[in-house]
């Protein structure tokens, strides 16, 4: 069985602006695409992780004796076996590879077992004796900063203040609100998996489903106490990500077991372990105050935002910055006072998830805009349009929005769409409650809601954000072939398709092979923040330009379009590697939150139509329409897929999805109890795509993946409010919030 996905050579053609199929699609529909969980190696053994049952406890002792006696067990490892640094993390090195003397969340890794079969490993894990002294967990994000310190520096991970304009403004109309966002899970369908193979040079080769190979490599090498070149990562097939694979899961664990046993080690999480094995979306509590004139112009916004980072920091710092800097939404406001706090608690660790930080703020500021419209007696779309930012508007950070910001246009597009007819049939499947037969139409009220959102694209705050691409052209069997190689992770979004399209457009070569993504080439950056088409797309475009320059030299000044490249190249190979950066950003001023911190902004608007059974609190989303500016749709079909998929995840947060915790313990770690939208929950979408090119970006592109996840949730909740007249300040909205029972 192959260790890596087959090289991806497309049999279809198409440059940018067309919608060629995915090159990995043939293998995927045949069931032959190798996901990480499909990896196999001769002589491999299986790794398992013993996790803490307590959200907060001191480890008194660990006794491995009986576990080591189980036949078929090759190794049982603890923190004492971590060869290098035991602490890792994306922003702060605060998370132990294996717990030392304390566990800070339920599910924290304590020990590892390597065995001949997963069930042997499970039996051995049950024989590891860990004595815990259970401690009182810190679980309230609003008071955590003043509670028992869980880390040496206390429980405040980051505070971002924003101060712009007057700090004591007055307004004709003031609306206030307190909002809550529950903990959402990425719920990618393919659970975490990886295979570590010990190498003859003493290093290790790791085949892994991840979002960022090089940051994994750095963290694994540090934990193993090895130089980077001894730790080589190759991307295996990824079954979705959505932020949940940006942190390490079993990367170090599998390598430790492989190096210890000198055997290939496979680790696969099941769904329950997956819930404990990756970070989630930060739950949030958001206090807002909006002041406006009598004609609906915003005078000021004040907010205090709390984000629960859980036991370890992960990317909490970036989430805090996004919630703060995007905290007023896509509106012009002269006077802004925001304080955004990310804190440690003993809840599950939280980090990246699609729209990170912007999703939480978006629910609150859009709820406030509806409340303001209500207080003013204005139409909710009109009050938004009255305050909509445009190109040239100034953000609360002082940054000027220097490319298209068609906020009013997006709102008008969704508002002007025809409305779906009220169902006149008694088809239960179209009713709230569906075939549960809870209503035949009685008690059902329709509501319509709107929302618009803003998201930063790429990495911000002065981060050196770049990608590396290598493009090679050569003649194979008389045909000109291009190969493109990066370390940028394809997680399902379709980067491999976009890379092929760019190479075809730039070089005119039809046969384009995408090489497996690995760490033998430079950093591709993270598959997150809607950045890969922008940054890795930019790198591939630049590498193609370098190849074209070389070809032009070979052609001795002749116009390349008139040269037979097969003849020109002969047995020669042109092979260029380019590191490409987007324009630099600046850190935020730590006192005022001012600074040109973001690269680009993306915008989307939604209109939601819902039917609510107001007696039982059941909601049916009837239609969810979207308008989004994408700068330039390099693959229009793939763009629609991002908008539809992102909107569906926003629908999940609006009415169903929440990791429920109690005293720090997860109550619903399964797909039986953590519900994600099915085809019956997700309505048809009508989508308008604007292409207002950003002159700063390659091909004018604007990041696509996250904006639809921001505005989908508040639009649906606004529609439920319209149907019920309730305030509904928390997502997900549950039946009892509607019925009051």
């Amino acid at each position, binding site marked *: 069985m192959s260790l890596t996905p087959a090289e991806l050579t497309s049999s279809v053609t198409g440059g940018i602006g067309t919608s060629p199929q995915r090159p990995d699609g043939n293998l995927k529909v045949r069931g032959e695409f190798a996901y990480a969980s499909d990896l196999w190696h001769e002589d491999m053994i299986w790794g398992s992780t013993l996790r803490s049952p307590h959200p907060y406890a001191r480890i008194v002792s660990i006794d491995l004796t009986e576990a080591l006696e189980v036949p078929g067990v090759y190794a049982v490892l603890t923190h004492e076996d971590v060869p290098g640094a035991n602490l890792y993390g994306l922003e702060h090195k605060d998370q132990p590879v294996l717990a030392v003397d304390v566990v800070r969340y339920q599910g924290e890794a304590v020990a590892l077992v390597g065995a001949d079969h997963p069930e042997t490993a499970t039996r051995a894990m049950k024989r590891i004796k860990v004595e815990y002294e259970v401690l009182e967990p810190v679980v309230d994000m609003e008071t955590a900063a003043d509670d028992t310190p869980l880390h040496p520096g206390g429980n405040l991970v980051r505070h971002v203040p924003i101060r712009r304009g007057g700090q004591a403004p007055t307004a004709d109309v003031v609306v206030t609100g307190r909002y809550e966002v529950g903990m959402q899970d990425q719920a990618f369908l393919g659970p975490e998996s990886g295979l570590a193979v010990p190498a003859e040079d003493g290093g290790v080769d790791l085949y892994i489903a991840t979002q960022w190979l090089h940051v994994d490599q750095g963290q694994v090498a540090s934990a193993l106490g090895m130089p980077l070149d001894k730790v080589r990562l190759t991307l295996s097939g990824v079954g979705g990500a959505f932020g949940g694979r940006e942190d390490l899961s079993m990367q170090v664990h599998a390598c430790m077991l492989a190096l210890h046993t000198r055997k290939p080690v496979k680790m696969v999480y099941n769904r329950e372990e997956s819930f404990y094995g990756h970070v989630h979306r930060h739950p949030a509590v958001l206090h807002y105050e909006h002041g406006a004139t009598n004609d609906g112009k915003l005078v000021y916004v004040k907010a205090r935002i709390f984000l629960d980072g859980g036991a370890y920091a992960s990317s909490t710092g970036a989430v805090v910055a996004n919630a703060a800097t995007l905290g007023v939404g896509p509106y012009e406001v002269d006077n802004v006072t925001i304080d955004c706090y990310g804190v440690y608690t003993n809840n599950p660790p939280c980090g990246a998830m699609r729209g990170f930080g912007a999703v939480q703020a978006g629910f609150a500021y859009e709820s406030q805009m509806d409340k303001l419209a209500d207080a003013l007696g204005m139409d909710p779309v009109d009050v938004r349009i009255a305050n909509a930012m445009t190109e040239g508007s100034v953000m609360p950070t002082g940054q000027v929005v220097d490319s298209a910001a068609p906020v009013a246009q997006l709102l008008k597009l969704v508002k002007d769409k025809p409305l779906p007819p009220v169902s006149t049939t008694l088809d239960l499947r179209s009713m709230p409650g569906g075939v549960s037969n809870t209503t035949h139409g009685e008690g059902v009220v329709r509501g319509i809601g709107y929302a618009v959102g803003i998201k930063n694209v790429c990495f911000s705050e002065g981060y050196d954000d770049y990608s590396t691409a290598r493009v090679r052209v050569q003649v194979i069997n008389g045909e000109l072939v291009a190969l493109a190689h990066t370390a940028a992770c394809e997680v399902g979004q379709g980067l491999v398709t976009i890379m092929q399209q760019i190479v075809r457009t730039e070089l005119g070569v039809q046969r384009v092979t995408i090489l497996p993504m690995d760490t033998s080439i430079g950093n591709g950056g993270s598959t997150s923040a809607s950045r890969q088409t922008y940054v890795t797309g930019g790198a591939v475009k630049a590498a193609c330009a370098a190849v074209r320059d070389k070809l032009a030299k070979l052609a001795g000044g002749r116009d390349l379009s008139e040269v037979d490249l097969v003849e020109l190249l002969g047995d020669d190979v042109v092979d260029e590697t380019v590191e490409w950066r987007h324009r630099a950003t600046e850190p935020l001023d730590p006192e005022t939150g001012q600074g040109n911190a973001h690269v680009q902004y993306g915008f989307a608007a939604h209109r939601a139509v819902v039917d609510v059974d107001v007696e039982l609190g059941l909601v049916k989303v009837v239609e969810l329409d979207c308008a989004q500016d994408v700068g330039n749709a390099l693959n229009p079909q793939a763009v629609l897929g991002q908008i539809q998929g992102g909107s569906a995840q926003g629908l999940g947060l609006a009415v169903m999805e929440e990791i429920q915790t109690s005293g720090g313990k997860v109550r619903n770690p399964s797909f039986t109890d953590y519900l994600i939208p*099915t085809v019956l929950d997700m309505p048809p979408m009508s989508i308008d795509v604007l292409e207002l090119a950003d002159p700063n970006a390659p091909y004018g592109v604007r990041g696509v993946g996250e904006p639809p996840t921001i505005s989908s949730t508040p639009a649906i909740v606004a529609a439920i409010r319209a149907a019920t007249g309730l305030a509904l300040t928390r997502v997900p909205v549950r039946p009892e919030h509607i019925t009051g029972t």
Partner: protein
Amino acid sequence: MTGMRLTVNGVDREIDVDPSTLLVHAIREQVGLTGTHVGCLTGDCGACTVVLDGRTAKSCSVLALSADGSAVETVESLADGDELHPVQRAFWDGFAFQCGFCLPGMLLTAKELLDSTPEPDDAQILAAINGNLCRCTGYNTIVSAVRQASGCARTCAKETPCQES
């Protein structure tokens, strides 16, 4: 370990399993066909769907031994050599997947629907794939692909492969 027989994609297999082995693990590890995926182990996501004695079943919720003597068809059985089944072609052409982890269930369920109901209406499509989760697409393209495949199944004879759209 207990010996059992299974006909997988038309091939008779004899495998040894533990009494507790799930059918999905037997297919993936003993038979060696990994197109059938493990998504949740609770029968919720449908990524482990196979056709068991002529009907779709979630193979994470079937003990392997209880399928002794049964015929199993997996996603790998859909294509006929180089020629994709119309549902495979429609899903690929129609951007009806991104990561693709849900595909074994989506494709086999869609095929089962079209085999029994060659021209399903949308309500029948929704009812059929309601037991299969997809986290990437938001389902709109999946419904369209099944619709497209039904048109394809009506118009394409086996000898005249579908044209790429």
